[in-house]
């Protein structure tokens, strides 16, 4: 355990999260609950993102309701809504398999907040939309393929 002075220097340098991680107080899985998980955001594949999120072998679950169109005419604005019926849902992560950076959003479900999120996303091409749920009992996943006629990442 680092001494107090070194800990405070770490905070100054890298922020509280970095200091807590290097002092062993905060585990990698708790990184979901604090600052932005930049490693997950920078991941170029779904596998990389899942690893960075600490979800190595998520259980496929039908209790995650993912609503998306089957065909998205405009890949720039694809509506997505997610409701998790998994008890003890703590966070919901949305990924798009074939986007350059698959991790789209991570939402922490706070006390009193429903495990529900809806938004509109950009899809580069026909791809699977993947929802990862972190719950008290572990990691769960579901996915749906969305066909895209006009890609929306502009790249």
């Amino acid at each position, binding site marked *: 355990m680092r001494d107090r002075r070194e800990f405070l220097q770490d905070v100054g340098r890298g922020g509280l999260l970095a200091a807590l991680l290097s002092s062993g107080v905060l585990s990698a899985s708790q990184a979901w609950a604090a600052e932005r998980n930049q490693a997950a955001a920078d991941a170029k594949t779904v596998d990389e993102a899942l690893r960075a999120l600490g979800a190595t072998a998520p259980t496929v679950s039908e209790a995650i309701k993912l609503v998306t169109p089957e065909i998205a005419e405009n890949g720039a604005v694809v509506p997505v809504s997610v409701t998790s019926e998994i008890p003890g849902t703590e966070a919901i992560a949305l990924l798009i398999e074939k986007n350059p*950076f698959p991790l789209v959003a991570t939402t922490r479900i*706070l006390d*009193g*907040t429903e495990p*529900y999120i809806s*938004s509109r*996303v*950009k899809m580069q091409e026909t791809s699977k939309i993947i929802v990862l749920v972190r719950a008290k009992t572990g990691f769960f996943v579901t996915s749906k393929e969305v066909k895209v006629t006009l890609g929306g990442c502009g*790249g």
Partner: protein
Amino acid sequence: MGDPMRIRATMTGDVVDVKVLISHEMETGQRKDASGSLIPAHFITKVTAQHNGKAVLEADWGQSISKNPVLGFRFKGAAAGDKISISWVDNMQDSRTDEAVIS
């Protein structure tokens, strides 16, 4: 930055249903301009919402969220007449907070 967020917060039973429309380019950093140079990434990285001093939403966003994002979420413990505030920060340190009354 941009126009105020359009926030609609309505009670359905004991749940507040919130819909927000945010004005933001959500530039991915992958598009090129007319001269072929990359347009720098400029997108919202964090969205939070507060009710009575308590956080009711915390989300980390990436560049795959659509331009002029819409966001929907729901929470309990509020009543009509209460205020909620929504804030966002982007990767260029721009930020914005807007409030709305729950109806």
